[in-house]
């Protein structure tokens, strides 16, 4: 379980994350939504120890993140940032192999190879496993990065806007994979999403943030409501049930 207690992050005098507390349930998909600058990505980076916090605690299975041994934590929690420009020329398989580093420290065993195979299979990348990343489209690249995270085989998976720059088909594909990871393998997944509809359709819990504060958190159907969304996004959003999905109409 991930427990966030009173976490604050200051840039100068402005708090980008302002006394945020929450508990992220196990085995579910939790989405962070909110307008630009709400502190979603910063909060995710704090939880994953990429950014140091100024106040508060982040407990993962009862242990404070910044005090935990890095190597041990890498077997428990993985993070994928939104900008993943890698300077090195890697094939898909080489990239996915890096996901095994916390276990193998660079020397791959048979078990590692098997995990890499199954991660590649899970993301349906078999046909392009020997292609270089710079030969792939944005969607394929994103799948390769997610395959790396799957190979890392952690209980908690944090993704920062995994749908950035992806078309509808690839976005849906990735959300479905995340759903499967949660349902079949019991992974706890936390994602930052910009599109409320993806959050509404695919996540179990939603945390709505604005100006570094949690506006409201709870099961999806409690958040996807006109009143809550108005408070978060500052606009009137019509919500309709289509095929048992709550769809927000925010285009007009």
């Amino acid at each position: 379980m991930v427990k966030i207690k009173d976490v604050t992050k200051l840039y100068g005098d402005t708090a980008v994350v302002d006394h945020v507390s929450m508990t992220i349930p196990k085995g579910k998909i939790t989405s962070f939504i909110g307008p630009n600058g709400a502190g979603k990505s910063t909060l995710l980076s704090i939880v994953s120890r990429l950014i140091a916090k100024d106040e508060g605690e982040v407990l993962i299975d009862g242990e404070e993140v910044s005090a935990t041994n890095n190597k041990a934590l890498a077997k428990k929690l993985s993070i994928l940032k939104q900008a993943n420009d890698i300077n090195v020329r890697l094939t898909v398989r080489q990239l996915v192999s890096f996901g095994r580093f916390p276990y193998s420290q660079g020397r791959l065993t048979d078990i590692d190879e098997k995990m890499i195979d199954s991660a590649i299979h899970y993301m349906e990348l078999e046909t392009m496993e020997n292609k270089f990343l710079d030969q792939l489209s944005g969607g394929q690249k994103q799948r390769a990065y997610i395959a790396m995270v799957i190979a890392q085989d952690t209980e908690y998976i944090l993704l920062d806007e995994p749908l950035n720059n992806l078309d509808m088909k690839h976005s849906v594909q990735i959300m479905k994979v995340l759903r499967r990871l949660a349902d079949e393998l019991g992974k706890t997944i936390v994602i930052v999403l910009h599109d409320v509809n993806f959050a509404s359709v695919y996540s179990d819990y939603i945390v709505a943030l604005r100006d570094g504060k949690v506006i409201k958190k709870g099961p999806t159907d409690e958040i996807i409501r006109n009143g809550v969304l108005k408070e978060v996004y500052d606009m009137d959003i019509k919500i309709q049930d289509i095929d048992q999905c709550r769809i927000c109409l925010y285009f007009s």
Partner: protein
Amino acid sequence: MSHKTKLMLLAIGSVVAISLFLFVGLTGNWQYILERRFTRIIAIAVTGAVIAIATIIFQTITNNRILTPSLIGLDALYQLIQTFIIFFYGSTSLSATNQTVNFFLSIGLMIVFALILFKLLFKRGNNIYFLLLIGLIFGTFFQSLSTFMQVLIDPNEFLIVQNRMFASFNNVQTDLLYMSIGIIVVTLLYLLRFTKYLDVLSLGKSHAVNLGVDYNRVVQQLMVIVAILMAVATALVGPIMFLGILVVNVTYEMFKTYKHSVLILATVFVSIIALVGGQFIIDRVFNFSTTLSVVINLVGGVYFLYLILKENRTW
């Protein structure tokens, strides 16, 4: 060609370059000549290897293939130390004439400077680019100070200073060479503990942290290693600016891999071939009319411009 064949070819190339250097034109008192050449070749090979390794680590940490470790300002500090000694104590003083004193003074000051710089900067978060910026500013400051002193001193003394501003393998002292090798071996043994992290570090900070690398600690230790290696190489032969960039980039082009176990070994060979081959040409073709570092800086500078113009971001 597989990496193994390429490595083998490079190893053979290095051996050929070294034997050419050692045995071509061996006439007269061959024992004496061979002994002198042997010292020089070891000095050349060791500095070449050390600079190449330091550069590759530095570029991996900074994720940038057109940076060189001289950005921390060590070269400029070395020049300042040399100028300072001659400015205040004259070219006949002990610290100017006694190479051992000079050697340890230079190494000591360079390492102390690097450690203070790292300590100050790593305390307040770990921004590697901020460190480079400060290093650059210090480097410029040291250079201006040296120039200032050089303008004031006696022209004869200035010639001696100028001589030390360029790397030269022609008068390396044997005992200093062995001491340097000692320091280098210890440093490289220490480096072995971190080599497994280098591949992961080349993915960038967030991936490295995600994969369980204790980023701040590892980068700090690696920077200290780079500083020690550069300090020893510089104090031994003088500053060579572009050698590292040149040989490391040639290695990247040849091997196109991210595996540092291959890259480090390969770049050592490339560096030895470039330096030994270059020195051979200078000795026999140009009859010592120029120094190797002038040639290396010329070729390296041109290649550096080419790299910038090409704006090649993927490697």
